[in-house]
């Protein structure tokens, strides 16, 4: 009979599937797990649980679908429209409508540092992308968005309460219909995440759209300190220096970043 205490034995057994709590270890562990599924051409589901629940679905090593309980999924019929024959712009919009929720879900799972469990072969969603997204492309896009969200988090996160500017002069407001749809839904308890669910848009995209409306002075963020706001920069988010790792977003880190 083993002399190893039961708890330590359980930890040893789960070490291969559960990310450790060591600071900074999560990005490496989760990306390695995805890369392994990609390299082995796996088909099935990688479930996530804990701080955020969801799953990433693979077919032949490529990601065909992902979902998170904290992000809206694709609109009903989005996969059917994507599979149909469409004019060019509608085709691009249909591709966007199915890829955006996948990346949004993965971003949420990674940002929440959700634990991943054992890979379950043969578990596939009812609908998914035909060709799928390569693991490296998904990781690159997720990392870029994490850097962008970290940059914005000094002022705004998906869960920051926002409000409409009470001194707004409607005749001076010039926004697109896309932005207007968002602006008119800003209720007293609104956050970018609530609005994303309300509009069926991605949480990341809604957060950047809200940031633009903040910059225009049409909205304000709760607890926003004067002078904290900086110009949103996609270039900064896309610039990867050697040795860069996936940033971990937290309120504390955001404050340090701002100082």
């Amino acid at each position: 009979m083993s002399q190893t205490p039961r708890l330590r034995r359980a930890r040893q057994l789960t070490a291969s599937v559960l990310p450790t709590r060591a600071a900074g270890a999560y990005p490496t562990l989760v990306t390695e797990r995805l890369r392994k599924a990609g390299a082995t051409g796996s088909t099935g589901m990688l479930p996530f649980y804990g701080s955020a629940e969801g799953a990433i679905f693979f077919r032949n090593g490529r990601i065909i679908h992902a979902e998170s309980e904290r992000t809206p999924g694709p609109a009903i019929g989005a996969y059917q429209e994507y599979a149909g024959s469409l004019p060019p712009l509608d085709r691009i919009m249909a591709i966007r409508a199915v890829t955006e929720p996948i990346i949004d879900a993965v971003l949420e799972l990674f940002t929440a540092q959700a634990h991943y469990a054992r890979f379950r072969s043969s578990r596939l969603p009812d609908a998914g992308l035909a060709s799928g997204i390569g693991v490296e492309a998904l990781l690159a896009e997720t990392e870029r968005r994490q850097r962008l969200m970290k940059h914005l988090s000094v002022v705004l996160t998906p869960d920051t309460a926002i409000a409409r500017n009470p001194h707004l002069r409607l005749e001076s407001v010039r926004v697109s219909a896309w932005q207007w749809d968002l602006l008119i839904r800003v209720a007293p308890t609104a956050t970018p995440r609530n609005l994303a669910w309300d509009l069926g848009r991605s949480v990341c995209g809604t957060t950047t759209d809200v940031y633009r409306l903040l910059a225009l002075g049409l909205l304000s963020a709760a607890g926003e300190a004067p002078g904290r706001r900086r110009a949103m920069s996609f270039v900064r988010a896309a610039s990867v220096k050697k040795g860069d790792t996936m940033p971990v977003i937290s309120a504390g880190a955001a404050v340090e970043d701002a100082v």
Partner: protein
Amino acid sequence: MILNEAEAVLDSVADIDGFLLGCLVDASTGMVLAARKDQDDISLPIAAAGAADIANVISLLAGELSVDGPEDVMVTFRGQFHVIRPISGDRRPVILLLVILDRARVNLALARLQIRNFCVGFAA
């Protein structure tokens, strides 16, 4: 670029003389939706991110000036032209077309016409 299957929509842009790179960028998130490239030394993520940032600044400017949004934006570098053009309608998420052209090989007037025609046909 997320899905390779989107690449074919940019075939006609790639036929412009002096073409170096063309891509469709989601202005909300900065994500590249489709891309064609004739030269490897241009960083697609950086070029696309730059186009999204420029479009963002221009849209802020348009909002402050209370004028309609841009038809196109041209950035002139010493060796390249970058043409940025929003191609989707008001009610949809903004998709940007970025075309990078070799300044030594391009007829700019003709290229702009071809880009405009592509966008009109693309959105039809």
